[in-house]
């Protein structure tokens, strides 16, 4: 008797949505093992990680705050992947968005200038889009794969931000700390819940969910994108442009990531610092796949990932655990997700050696 994977006649719809839940459960178990090995009671640690942040209003607003950039980046990534364009450089586009929007805030911020904030948001989206346009050009013109170029350009963007906040944009009254001056009030997002950091950017991110769904499911553009991604030969037959799909999906996902960046700068951070994101752009890749590349699925997955970030901070504070634990659990999440996804197209069957039966 042995076990064998057998192709299913059709992909399992149930398994498609069960797989992320299974992966989350397995990652929690795996996390518990890690906590136990580090000498902590796994139940206490898991409670701190997953439950404690949800028990207070403050925790819930922080959850929305952290879900915002994840949601925006992941939606952009998912639109790309549906078109078979793999933008894994959202982190860099996010950084460029923060730089572009932050530049506007530093240049024009002041009292009574209502137009500064909208201009910042536009600049942020444009900065991210421009950064993603480079891989689009490299792919369509020179056939350079976007997985490499988007990733490599991320590090360029992060270095650029580092240079700016250490050099030309450094706060002259900041005791030589590598950061810009704080933005003026007009360059900051309005807060939604009094006394919390949750701001209007969260609403923008929520708005992106139905819009992305509309784009993918109900527009000709979305249909073209999906066809190019799903069946390139059929797209060529229908006359859908593959080049257009590359440009559209990279520029759109770059703009969303750039928007996420400027929302961080104009929101919880309030200035530019050498590091604007604790890896939101990379974690969003996991979020996009956990959410099955579907806008509403991504909404749920972004909250789960936000919880992981938030709980991770609590762990650092209350149990003195290193931040690397969160990276480990994120990794396990993706690992178990990929493993569980095998069962969408295949099933496990028990084979009895029938030949001699």
């Amino acid at each position, binding site marked *: 008797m042995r076990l064998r994977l057998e192709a299913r*006649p*059709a992909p399992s719809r149930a398994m498609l949505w069960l797989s992320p839940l299974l992966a989350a459960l397995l990652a929690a178990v795996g996390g518990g093992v890690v906590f136990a090995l580090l000498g902590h009671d796994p139940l206490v640690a898991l409670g701190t990680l997953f439950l404690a942040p949800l028990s207070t209003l403050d925790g819930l607003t922080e959850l929305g705050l952290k879900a915002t950039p994840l949601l925006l980046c992941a939606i952009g990534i998912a639109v790309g992947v549906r078109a078979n364009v793999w933008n894994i450089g959202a982190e860099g586009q996010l950084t460029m968005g923060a730089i572009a929007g932050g530049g506007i805030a530093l240049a024009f911020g002041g009292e009574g200038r209502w137009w500064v904030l909208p201009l910042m948001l536009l600049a942020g989206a444009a900065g991210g889009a421009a950064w993603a346009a480079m891989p689009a050009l490299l792919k369509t013109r020179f056939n350079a794969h976007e997985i490499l170029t988007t990733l490599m350009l991320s590090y360029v963007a992060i270095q650029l931000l580092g240079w700016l906040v250490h050099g030309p944009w450094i706060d002259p009254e900041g005791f030589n700390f590598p950061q810009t001056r704080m933005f003026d009030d007009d360059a900051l997002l309005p807060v939604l819940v009094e006394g919390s950091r949750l701001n209007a950017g969260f609403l923008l991110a929520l708005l992106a969910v139905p819009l992305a769904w*509309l784009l993918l499911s*109900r*527009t*000709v*553009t979305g*249909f073209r994108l999906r*066809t190019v991604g*799903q*069946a390139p*030969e*059929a797209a*060529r*037959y*229908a*006359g*859908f*442009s593959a080049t257009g799909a590359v440009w559209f999906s990279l520029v759109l996902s770059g703009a969303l990531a750039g928007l996420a960046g400027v929302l961080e700068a104009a929101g919880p951070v309030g200035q530019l610092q050498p590091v604007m994101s604790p890896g939101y752009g990379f974690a969003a890749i996991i979020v996009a796949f956990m959410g099955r590349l579907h806008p509403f699925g991504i909404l749920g997955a972004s909250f789960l990932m936000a919880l992981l970030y938030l709980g991770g901070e609590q762990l650092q504070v209350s149990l003195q655990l290193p931040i690397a634990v969160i990276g480990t659990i994120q990794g396990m999440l993706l690992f178990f997700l990929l493993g569980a996804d095998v069962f969408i197209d295949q099933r496990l069957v028990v084979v009895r050696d*029938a*030949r001699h039966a």
Partner: protein
Amino acid sequence: MSSGVAVSLPRGVLPPRLSLFGISKRYGAMLANDAVALNVAPGEIHALLGENGAGKSTLMKIVYGVIAPDAGEIAWEGETVQVADPNAARALGIGMVFQHFSLFETLTVAENIALGLGSRQGLAALTAEIRRTAAQYGLAVEPGRHVHHLSVGERQRVEILRCLLQRPKLLIMDEPTSVLMPQEADGLFVMLRRLAAEGCSVLYISHKLEEIRALCTAATVLRAGRVVARCDPRVETAESLAEMMMGGALARTHRPPAHAAGAPCLVVNRLTLPAGEPFGTTLRGIALELRAGEILGIAGVAGNGQKELLAALAGERRSAPGAVLLEGRPVGALGPAARRARGLAFIPEERLGRGAVAEYSLAENALLTRVDGVTAPRGLLDMRAVNALAARLIARFGVRCSGIAAQGRSLSGGNMQKFIVGREIDAGPRVLLAAHPTWGVDIGAALAIRQDLMDLAAAGAGVLVVSEDLDELLEIADRIAVLSGGRLSPPMPVAEATVERIGLLMGGAERMVHAPAA
């Protein structure tokens, strides 16, 4: 040997070469083979007949050890055997030539055969043996040539030689003539008869009923996984064989009354296009004129520029603007969508992955080439219109499926093709291009598709059909031209077209036939 299988054994005392008893194989809800029994006598050319999806391929894969049956027994020369894998089948003396060849393009014929045999003899000795066997069966193959230089017919001969070198007692051939020119098919039949005369049995799978009547001495007919008839095809007619396969009276296409051909609707002027990919064909000086209301057939063996010609006509490859005229307007530089907007429709050769998307619902597949009709302002899709379009196509063209939400992959090849053909015809094109429209489609669907094409032409559209199936072209086309080596012969009226004349042109003889008086 207790089964009551009624097949005469020509050499009475010998047990059948191969006997199958109660072979069943189930895939999910579908019973691919249902208690199939089959006897093949030594030296017999035995036809296995059936529509697509009748279970022929499954049965042959079971015999060749590729898949294991759920139930049933296989007897080889009277002894019950287990065919665990293709190696075991070959050890028994079973050879199989698949529809799709498995040859390495960059190796020579001899190297390919050596790989397949896994033999320990040197290449020189093997080469000599290949020459000897090839001569013995009249198979013209040069062992030292690289496979990528070979025509499809030559490649098939390599596959056959590979089997023959193992001295098979049973040779299974899966639709061997679908890739051959008429003369090549004749050569194949001579070879198979010689093989049978030496005592080797042949199991012959084919759709082409006339050639089965000419070649085979016994036939087993499968329908929906079950044996429904056994007969001697020599005393049957093609029609009676088709009725056994389909289980009912055969409908026929009826040609609409003759009509005068109209104005040219698609004109190609001296189109020369280099091959787009390695081993592709360069189009050389193609000139053709398709008239409104006619069906122009393009005959020829695949690989002679069909793909390239269709790509150039459909707009997937661009040319000089004036090289292709659609209703008098230059469209050579336009892409597929722009040409479609000007009244061109195209039925591509590949169904899933090109003409339709396997993972898409039929509603989405309807959308593939019909975006313009169902788009509300601002690029939003009018889902009600999309669904109505798909429902109309399903009803109008008799597509058997579970509804507009059915995934492309869930349809049989014939029904998927009916849907694609319907989608293109329903667009109301002025010009329709159809590539191998009934290839691999069951007889009922093929009839319906041919009728649809003829009706469209009768309604005043120009229809260009590229097909390898000469009988089909002779049935539906008004004029036939032959594509060979990237050159297109002048068209001839179908009344003047004979298999021999077209066969000569396929072999690249158009310059001899149509050369100016020398």
